[in-house]
């Protein structure tokens, strides 16, 4: 047996707590006698009776630890138990509700969170995000309008410290099955995604879900990640991580139109991966083709994606007006329809065919995103219905967590109105059967109102273009 006596000058604890601590020490394996107490005369006598010897003088304000144990290891364990017994990790709040944390950092500390999700105004996101990273947490920044130099600082810090910075302007992510931001409910599965496009990820999630294929991770990286300024820092990190993730078999990389040198860098990294990587860059290919390739890599063929089609050939002639809430869905539709229709505008001012993204900053100042608040799109839908120069209206409806609870109910009367006025309405419905709004219920309501509804955004775009070129009666 080894005897050890230590004095901690001026360290005060109440005797009741010390009796509890002594008891905890006596229960440590390999420990025989143990006493931790203030050095009062009574306790010093107790120590002497227990056969411990104390060198030097002490005062009643000193804490004494005395342990007799079989080994140094047992004494070391006893010291750990003592620290634990006398420290106060429990966050006491005196029976009151603790005040709500005021910063992302203190909320994260309170819950020992591993991800901090920020949707504060962009000018203030940097300080919150940096604090999250400095405390070892991953960050998703839903906010836009974060200066690009700050995005670069955050992403470089994250890359250096093994932390992922999703965003800024990251609308969608799925981490281990948990949807963050605007995300569709999907089953976990063999596909991992990483990408700089919120609705691009959502569309891919929905197409794979329709094919019966699940996704465990979809790491959003924010709309600027593949710009020259950022150089795909987060996308490359995500790609490498998914390549090493044992639960992932096939990787899909998705981005809004990337800067050419950055695109080349990402492609080069993709070829380095040990797993199949399907790269879908908007402006070069479509999400539908990307999903087909992913399915092929899994040895599955692409299904006939769900649709609730209506024969709308007898609509009034005129241009196609696209009213989108998802930027990437708009870009994909425009890319596809352009091969049939030629030039398609992107602004309300453009005459002829025009596909507009109402999720763009220009239309969201001071109001919620159109996936949540459809006021602006409803207004424009009504205007398009009464505009005789428009023959076909193409709408996206995005479901999932974070989105409007029942968009079809709001849109159906206006769709019926437009149909009655002679316009054709085509809907690209981005959703899964597991979404809180339920894809099939929403589709049925839109279809009931007269719209031709397509799960694949590309298919909806093709149908709208076809109607504009082949259909129409004067």
């Amino acid at each position, binding site marked *: 047996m080894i005897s050890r006596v230590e004095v901690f*000058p*001026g*360290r*005060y604890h*109440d005797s009741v*707590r010390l009796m509890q601590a002594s008891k905890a020490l006596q229960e440590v394996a390999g420990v025989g006698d143990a006493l931790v107490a203030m050095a009062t005369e009574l306790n010093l006598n107790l120590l002497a009776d227990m056969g411990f010897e104390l060198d030097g003088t002490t005062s009643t*304000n000193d804490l004494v630890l005395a342990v007799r144990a079989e080994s140094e290891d047992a004494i070391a364990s006893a010291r750990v138990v003592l620290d634990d017994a006398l420290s*106060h990790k*429990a966050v*006491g*709040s*005196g029976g*009151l509700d*603790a*005040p*709500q*944390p*005021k*910063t*992302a950092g*203190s*909320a994260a500390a309170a*819950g*020992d*969170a*591993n*991800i*901090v*999700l*920020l*949707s*504060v105004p962009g000018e*203030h996101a*940097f*300080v*919150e995000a*940096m*604090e*999250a990273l*400095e405390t070892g947490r991953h960050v998703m920044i*839903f906010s836009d309008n974060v200066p690009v130099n*700050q995005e670069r600082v955050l992403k470089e810090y994250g890359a250096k410290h*093994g*932390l*992922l910075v999703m965003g800024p302007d990251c609308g969608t992510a799925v*981490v*281990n099955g*948990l*949807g*963050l*931001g605007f995300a569709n*409910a999907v089953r976990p599965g063999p596909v991992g995604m990483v990408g700089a496009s919120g609705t691009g990820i959502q569309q891919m999630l929905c197409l794979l879900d329709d094919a019966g294929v699940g996704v465990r*991770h979809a790491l959003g990286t924010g709309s600027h990640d593949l710009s020259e300024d950022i150089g795909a820092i987060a996308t490359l*990190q995500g790609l*490498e*991580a998914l390549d*090493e993730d044992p*639960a992932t078999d096939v990787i899909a990389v998705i981005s809004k139109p990337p800067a050419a040198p950055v695109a080349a860098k990402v492609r080069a990294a993709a070829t380095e991966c040990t797993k199949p990587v399907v790269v879908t860059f908007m402006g070069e290919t479509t999400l539908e083709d990307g999903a087909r390739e992913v399915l092929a890599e899994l040895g599955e063929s692409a299904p006939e994606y769900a649709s609730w089609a209506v024969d709308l050939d007898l609509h009034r002639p005129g241009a196609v007006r696209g009213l989108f809430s998802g930027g990437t869905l708009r870009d994909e539709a425009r890319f596809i329809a352009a091969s049939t229709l030629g030039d398609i505008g992107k602004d309300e001012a453009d005459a002829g065919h025009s596909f507009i993204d109402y999720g763009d900053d220009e239309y969201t100042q001071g109001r919620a995103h159109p996936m949540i608040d459809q006021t602006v799109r409803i207004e424009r839908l009504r205007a398009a219905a009464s505009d005789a120069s428009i023959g076909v209206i193409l709408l996206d409806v995005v479901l999932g*967590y*974070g989105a409007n609870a029942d968009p079809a109910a709001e849109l159906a009367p206006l769709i019926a109105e437009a149909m009655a006025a002679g316009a054709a309405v085509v809907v690209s419905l981005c959703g899964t059967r597991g979404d809180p709004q339920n894809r099939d219920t929403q589709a049925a309501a839109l279809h009931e109102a007269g719209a031709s509804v397509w799960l694949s955004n590309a298919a909806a775009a093709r149908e709208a273009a076809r109607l504009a070129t082949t259909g129409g009666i004067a």
Partner: protein
Amino acid sequence: MSDLSQLLDSDPVVATAGADMLADSIEQQGSNVWRADWRPPHSDAADALARLAADGRMAAANATSIDKMLRVRPHLVDVGVARDVFPEMTDRTFFHAGPPLEWERAGGPMRGAIIGGMLYEGLATNPDDAAAKAARGEVELSPCHHHGAVGPMAGVTTPSMPVAIVQDGAGDGVSYSTLNEGLGKVLRYGAYAPEVVERLQWMSRVLGPVLGAALRSRGPIDLQSLIAQALQMGDDGHNRNRAVTSLFLREIGGALVDGADAPIDQRLDVFKFIDGNDHFMLNLVMAAGKLGSDAAAGTTASSLVTVMARNGTDFGVRLSGTGDEWFTAPAPPVDGLYLGRFTEEDASPDIGDSTITETVGLGGFAMAAAPAIVGFVGGTAAGAVRRTLAMYEITLAEHPAYQIPMLEFRGTPVGIDAARVVRTGVLPQINTGVAGKVPGTGMVGAGLVEAPIECFVDGINALAATVADS
């Protein structure tokens, strides 16, 4: 494995700041979410906060400075005389509370205390004479904080006064404070009547020498241990010091009997004086705080608040990373309870170095430990607990020694982070006494005050300028 395996392999636990909708949708999926009640930072500090975040040194610097603050072991070793203890002090040097101040800008209690100090030192024959001489600059004013010292209320420290000496048992720091005169008509509250001056003379003639001798004979008193015990006996260390004063008397009692070479009636008077003054230990708690405060000073890029102090005109703050610079704003009025017929009309703006207690995790920050004085916080014990709980948001650590039974012996919130103050708008909560605004009045009440945000905004901007330079 990849660096990101932690993210991909574990169940996500998410904290949010911003739109509730995003947090709601996480809960909708059956996961817990930790929400911040986030609001924008002070608009004049937002750029500085971003610069400090980009610089990246602040968090580590704060860890260093708070560690230094908590590492000190304040030991009361002796009582000396100001002119001996402070070599820089001339016969006409008066130290005072708070940031630097001139007679012209001084308020009632400060002027009253300077007048009283001059009468006590024999520098003036009557109050009018003292005021006229002070107005002509015949005494040189200098903040206590510039000399390793602290003083409650006016904090006026003159060359003949006894001064307690506190040394760091774990380092080589040393700090000082005057001895507490008691409540009511006392110099520190701006009173200068003959009985005030007589008491001061007794303190220098009897109290200081007897206490000093007793201390030298018994050896140092571990102040941190006494304060830690007192928090578990209902003190906050600022507005309630009854328990810690009682503990002190137990520590010093034996040495007063056998250790001081003084007539028995003097030793008895000293015993009775301490026994009769519930705030005797306030000055010593403050000196203990000053030791930690000075130890924490001078860490580059640290936003730790090392000093909060008021002179009755200005409220001043110093940060660890901005050297000796003071960041000041007008001293706010105190939300108080008043003695007798006094009302808030009679009150001076906030005054004193005693906010050093809040700077080191005591006073308003330890309010949950002091149910006896909850009258200051709306009269409920729950209000006191809430006040302490709110301070964890703006502090860097939980005090390892100062614990609150009500909070399951959680350490008090300690180490105010000026960056968190300007980010959250949560202001340091201060318990304080209230002095009468007319010179000579003395104490009129006690209550609560919040540190002005402007001091912290200016401090953070200055700190950001230091990191931008380097």
